[in-house]
């Protein structure tokens, strides 16, 4: 039993504990959830240790136990530099979600916090599972609590949104289940490492056509979750109708399940198919970036605006992955974390505003900066981070993705950069309409940040600045792990310099980690 097992199962234990607390004892339920989720977070900090002192570049905290003997299904979990940070993102945001729901959730309190912890269990599991069956179990298990969170505690159209969310993801993951079983029948194992090794050394040799179909089956399941245009239509509904904590977990962590799946499973297992499909996938990613930004610009509803901005930001992640360059991969993973932090923060602050004014319409606000300068400041920093302003986190990852993309095809980078410009437009315009201008009678009475809300905002603000100014705390560990995945699919292997423009060629074999280490 390793620390990782404890981090995975603590939320589940806490879930059962909450079920035992009498349902009228609201304060003990809230306090217990906070203590439990904070304990999980503190425990998960210990997971950084191997990466802090050395940089293993392989899976650590590995546990591999038999679960079901026939078919051979194992409880196999471990983390590398990619999953480590996603696990930490999950464990950090859960206590913050508990805090933000402290007063805003007033009905069925016990069930709410129980589902939140069950969700944490599922999400952590998804990022650690190295057995396909186990992965699928966590993937589906995380669906159920989110469905309830949206459906019970959401806004007016919550039932429609919850069912749509569930059916979209469930239908797509059925294709993944077929693919997983198909691979098992060829490989005789569900173990990710063994399947990957088998595919790479040719002992499992599906024909190219099979590879392509398997790739597409996985891809569609992940693409719905990301979501990649045109499979995104569930997302605005789910985000808008979910309660604040639901939106935060959905945007910050659940969408990453899709991009994580693409990077962990789709690309390394079926490199040929991935390379051959990259053309239209990149096109979809760029459409997503620009379309998401344009649609975000015209939204009258704050949550919907942030939701569409997620479509745009996640487009960068997909773009980075399908550029098949070291910079693109690193940027993609870093963008996942940055989006988690800054969009999570945006949803939290929108939640603060909703708690006060009980409206998500932008037109209901205006001049909020006058009564609530602290909210305005926090929102300002978060918004700038989300836009990709230098010194804040979004910049680093968007830059890396654009750099990686430009190495392959400069035109892609140009189109994608358009998205960054549009992001500035919709964010600044949102800020102007909500915070500036003359405060109306309803708005001028708004309270500023409460102590509880300071506790929620400050860690995220610190992270935004830290991740923006000091990316070398994070990127080397990401880079060593992405380099392992990149090896067989590296774009440099067959990229001819197609660009007329003078692009600085990447030194062969030099990973970004090295560059940063040299710079130090």
């Amino acid at each position, binding site marked *: 039993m390793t620390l990782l097992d404890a981090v995975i199962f603590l939320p589940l234990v806490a879930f059962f504990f909450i079920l035992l607390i009498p349902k009228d004892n609201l304060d003990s339920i809230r306090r217990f959830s906070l203590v439990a989720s904070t304990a999980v977070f503190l425990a998960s900090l210990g997971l950084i240790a191997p990466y802090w002192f050395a940089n293993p570049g392989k899976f650590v905290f590995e546990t591999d136990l038999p679960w*079901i*003997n*026939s*078919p051979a299904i194992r409880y196999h979990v471990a983390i590398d530099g990619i999953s480590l940070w996603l696990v930490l993102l999950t464990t950090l945001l859960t206590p913050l979600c508990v805090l933000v729901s402290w007063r805003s959730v007033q009905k*069925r309190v016990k069930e709410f916090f129980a589902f939140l912890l069950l969700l944490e269990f599922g999400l952590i599991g998804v990022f650690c599972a190295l057995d396909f069956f186990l992965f*699928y*179990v966590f993937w*589906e*298990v995380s*669906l*159920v609590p989110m*469905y*309830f969170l949206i*459906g*019970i505690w959401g806004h007016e159209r*919550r*039932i429609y949104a*919850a*069912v749509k969310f*569930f*059916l979209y993801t*469930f*239908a797509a993951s*059925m*294709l993944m*289940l*077929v693919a997983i*079983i*198909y691979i*098992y*029948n060829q490989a005789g194992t569900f173990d990710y490492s063994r399947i990957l090794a088998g595919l790479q050394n040719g002992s499992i040799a599906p024909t190219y056509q099979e590879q392509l179909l398997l790739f597409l089956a996985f891809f569609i399941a992940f693409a719905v979750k990301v979501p990649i245009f045109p499979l995104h239509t569930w997302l605005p509904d789910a985000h808008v109708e979910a309660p604040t904590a639901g939106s935060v977990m959905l945007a910050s962590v659940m969408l990453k399940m899709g991009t994580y799946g693409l990077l962990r499973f789709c690309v390394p297992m079926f490199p040929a198919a991935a390379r051959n499909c990259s053309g239209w996938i990149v096109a979809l990613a760029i459409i997503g970036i620009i379309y998401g930004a344009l649609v975000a610009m015209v939204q009258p509803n704050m949550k919907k605006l942030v939701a569409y901005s997620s479509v745009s930001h996640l487009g960068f992640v997909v773009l980075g992955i399908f550029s098949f360059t070291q910079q693109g991969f690193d940027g993609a993973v870093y963008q996942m974390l940055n989006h988690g932090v800054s969009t999570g923060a945006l949803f939290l602050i929108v939640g603060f505003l909703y708690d006060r004014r009980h409206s998500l319409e932008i037109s209901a606000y205006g001049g909020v900066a006058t009564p609530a300068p602290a909210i305005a400041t926090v929102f300002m920093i978060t918004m700038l981070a989300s836009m990709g302003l230098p010194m804040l986190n979004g910049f680093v990852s968007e830059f890396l993705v654009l750099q990686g993309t430009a190495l392959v095809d400069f035109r892609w980078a140009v189109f994608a950069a358009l998205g960054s410009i549009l992001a500035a437009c919709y964010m600044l315009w949102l800020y102007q309409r909500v915070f500036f201008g003359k405060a109306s009678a309803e708005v001028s009475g708004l309270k500023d940040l409460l102590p509880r809300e300071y506790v929620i905002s400050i860690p995220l603000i610190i992270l935004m600045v830290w991740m923006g100014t000091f990316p070398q705390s994070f990127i080397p560990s990401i880079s060593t792990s992405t380099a392992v995945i990149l090896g067989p699919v590296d774009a440099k292997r067959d990229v001819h310099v197609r660009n007329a423009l003078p692009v600085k060629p990447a030194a062969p074999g030099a990973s970004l980690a090295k560059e940063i280490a040299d710079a130090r």
Partner: protein
Amino acid sequence: MPVNFAPSATDYLRFLPEIIMIVVGTLIMVLEPLLGSNKRSAFSSLTLLGFIAALVAAVAANNDPGASFSNMLIVDGFATFFRVLVIGVGILTVLSSSQYLRREHADAAEYYALLLFSVSGQCVMATANELIMIFIGLEISSIATYILAGYLRDDKRNNEAALKYFLLGSFATAFLLYGIAWIYGTAGSTNLEDIRHFLIAGSGSGRSLVLAGTAAALMFVGFAFKVSAAPFQIWAPDVYQGAPAPVTLFMSAGPKAAAFAVFIRVFTTAFGSIETRWEPFVWSSALLTMVIGNFAALTQTNIKRMLAYSSIAHAGYVMVAVAAHSQIGVAAAMFYLAAYAFMNIGAFAVVTHFSRQGEKFVNIEDLSGLGWKQPGTAALFSIFLLSLVGIPLTGGFFGKFYIFKAALDANLRWLSILGLLNSAVAAYYYLRVIVVMYMQEPTDSTVTLEPLSPGIRTTLYAAALGTLILGIFPSLLLNFATRSSVLVK
């Protein structure tokens, strides 16, 4: 072939579960006029005792497997599996019935006697090794079930259900019997092994193949009717909706499992060698069953009818396993039927509890806010529904997973993909019940709900435990199913 007509003690031991159930059933019929009406509750206890004794006998018989009564019956792992399953279904049915019967003022002994007879018939089906025994078992089981479907004889819907079930059922049985006659005429035997050897040896002769194929087709009609597989599923929604709720609970699990047992045994043993001929029919029937079941269930407002269509859809999944025609396919079908029995009994037990006198509340909308009025019941119901959807960590998921694994093993790719997409469609109508329970405010129908009766509570706990254990530790059952799935030695 010298035939010894005097049965030995071993023969009786292997047949003991059926004997116990018939004896207890007859005893109950005899005792009823003797006991006063205030002692009625003794019957359900007596029935339970009978079932438990039969269960023990069935498990014990498996220690000494083999044929009995001149090879007419056979006790093997497969038979034991289904015997235990149908007796288990009988036990849970008794537990969920007693309160319902008192409520409807129909607490009579014949209900329990019929239940015992029906289950004993299903046990005969599970052990039958030749076609006449299969037919006898099927008739014992069916006739008792026809009467049970119309048990509340003053109720119009009960009468309609029983009449429909009886007329269509007899028609289907006639097909089966006709098929038996054809194959007897062709092969000169009703023993499954003998038919198999005849078909393997005589595969060169075209005429016997045509005759055997016709027989297989006729028998397929009979079995498909009993398992409610398309295109012979039309009766199921009306009968399931009309019959008393605990009888529906019973019908959807027990007779269906036993019918699948004989279906699998006949088609893998006797007709195993002409597999390429019947596989396309099972294939298309499986797909059609899933599609009809799932899409028809989408628009239902009555929960019993919705679960009836869902039960058709689930028969379709099991047909996929049959179509795979492999050892793991048989094991998958066995596992799925067990998981299905648990989750479906659980769901119908909630319906039985909720419907109240005269089955007033059987619309999905009536369940509004049940999640907040009776959180325990609703949570258990959610487990059953999520298992029916096929969410991991439930028996329903692992069963489905194993069925489609068997199908992909047998290269049935399109059937697997279409089947799994079907289960995404199914998610919609199961989720609708969860939506109503948790996302709508309580109405009159939920507010006036009385607490769970001890019998139904026990059923629900047992079913939930079974569903979760089969989902989290499937090896416990799967290993036995895999070992017993070798029907052809």
